[in-house]
Each structure stands twice: as C-alpha cells, then as structure tokens.
C-alpha cells in the first residue's frame, strides 16, 4: 500500500481511526502504518482523539429541556445586535466546548506543521520503509534501461544484469 502521507491523502488515516475502512483496506493500512514512521504518529493521534471522545458520556437531557430551549429561542429573537455579537464568546457548556477544543487542537497541530514543514515531512519520508518488492521492481526497470544503453558500449552487446 502506498503511504497516505506521502501521497497526500491523510484523510485515509482519519477514516481508519474512525473505523470506516473496509476490513481488507484496514489490514493493508495497519501493515503499512506499522512500518511507516510518518503514518504511525498521525494514526496514533487520531485514534487517541476518537478514544477520548468515545470515553466521554454526554449528560442526559433534562425533562424540561424542550420548554427551556424554546424559551431561549424566544429570548434570542429579542436580543439587540450587540448582544448577539458577543454571545458566542460567553462561557460555553462542555458539550460545545469539547469538540471546539479538540478542533482547535487539530488546527494547532496543522499550524505547527505550517511553521516547521521541513522538519516533519522530509524526516518522515527519509525514514519510510521501502518494501523489498519495490526495490526488486526498480532493479528490473533499471536493468532493462541499462541493457538498452549498453547495446553499443559492451563488447558483446550485453552487460551483466543488475
């Protein structure tokens, strides 16, 4: 399997962490992630986020929730433009704060990448494990190209294969 980070398809890792991939793709990705220094921390990070969110239990909704909600909607309709403007900055309940905090954390991670792109990507790419099969395929191609280039230069028209 190709490296999702190198191929610029990190959303595959998000889908993997969310458990949305088919079993076969999951197995292939797990094999890749186990040997890929670039993918491993990204996948582990996403899995950790999902686990933390799954572990959080939403409090039960109170019996008079609907009544209070409609009252709030009515109140909102009576707010001045200034009150509507500052409203999002008031202290929010945990239900809204948690996903926003998690999202902000992800954006912060992206921001850090933005400031240090050269540190993360090349180092990770350099450490990427190359499959022996890839090396063998490249050797086969190099061999074909080498034989063509050596047609005139070699004494007998053939050089030793790579």
């Amino acid at each position: 399997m190709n490296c999702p980070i190198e191929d610029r398809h990190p959303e595959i890792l998000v889908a993997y962490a969310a458990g949305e991939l088919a079993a076969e793709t999951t197995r292939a990705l797990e094999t890749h992630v186990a040997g890929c220094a670039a993918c491993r921390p990204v996948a582990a990070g996403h899995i950790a986020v999902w686990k933390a969110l799954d572990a959080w239990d939403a409090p039960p909704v109170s019996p008079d929730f609907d009544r209070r909600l409609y009252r709030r909607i009515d109140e909102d309709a009576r707010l001045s433009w200034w009150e509507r403007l500052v409203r999002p900055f008031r202290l929010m309940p945990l239900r809204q704060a948690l996903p926003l905090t998690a999202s902000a954390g992800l954006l912060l991670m992206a921001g850090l990448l933005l400031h240090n792109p050269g540190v993360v990507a090349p180092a990770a790419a350099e450490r990427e494990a190359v499959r022996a099969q890839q090396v063998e395929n490249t050797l086969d191609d190099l061999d074909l190209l080498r034989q063509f280039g050596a047609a005139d230069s070699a004494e007998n028209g053939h050089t030793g294969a790579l």
Partner: protein
Amino acid sequence: MLFDFSWRTHPGFRLAILLALAVAASAESQPEQEKPAAQAQPADNAIERWNRMSPEERERELAKLPPERARLIRQRLWQYNHMKPEERQALLQRYQAFSELPPDKQEIVRARLREFEQLPKERRQAVHGEVELLRLMTEGQRKAHMNGEEFRNRFSVPEQRIIKDVFQYIPN
C-alpha cells in the same frame, strides 16, 4: 432525542478535521513553491531510499522473501551500488524520465525494452544506434527520416516500433 449525536458523524467536528488536514497539506506543499530549485531535484528512487534504511530494517524486509530471492536482490543491489559513477548517473537520468511517465506508458517502454533484449546482438546495436541518431536530429529531420524509404527498409516493423517508442518516451 434532540441532541443525540455521534462524534464520528458530527458534521462540525468532521469539517474541523478536514480543515486541519487541508492546512497541513498546504503546509507540506508550501516549501516546494518557495524553493523551485529544490523541486527540480529528481525524486529518490526506491533503491536510494532503501540505501538510507538501517541495515536492520533492510534485513527485516528481505527476511520476508524466500532466501534465494533475497540473495538475488542483495547481489543486484551490490552491483548497482558499485557501478561507475558516470554510468550510474546516466542510468539514473534515463530512469528519472521513465519513472515520470504514467503507468500505461511505462508498460509500453518495458514491453519495447523486453523486445529489444530478444533481438540478436547486431540488431540491438543497429536499433540503439538509430535511437542515438534520432536524438541528434531536429524534429523536422526526424520526421522526414522516419518516413523515409531507408528507415523502413533497414528496420523491421517491430524494430521500428521499438525505436519510435523508446525515443518518444526516453528522450535522453
């Protein structure tokens, strides 16, 4: 229930994740735009990346293959790593052009080079010499030459196909 939702499907959170990924992706692509010289550097092939892996990592990978196949790969890698620098450089230039081709074109080149390998020695030399000759010509000269009687008489149809495709896809 009015507020029963799953984190996995919550559209706001998904949007934030995708936004973060988009920012990260643009961060990765940014240095390439800022450094055109660096972008012009050919990408490392699998062997160069393999050479940068630790000996333990390489052996771990080879251990997944049958011993005879692993031995052959080791031997071929040794030959590649001990090529004369100028010979290796020329080969890498050709490989770079080859690896930038779309997969279907790469398959065409592989097929032609395998056909080339099957030719007798003197025909290989004639075909190779013809490709080298075409490289020295201008486009107009090349067209006239390839449509000429001499070219058609001197090379069989499969040989003409090898010459045309190898010249077209591996111009250096």
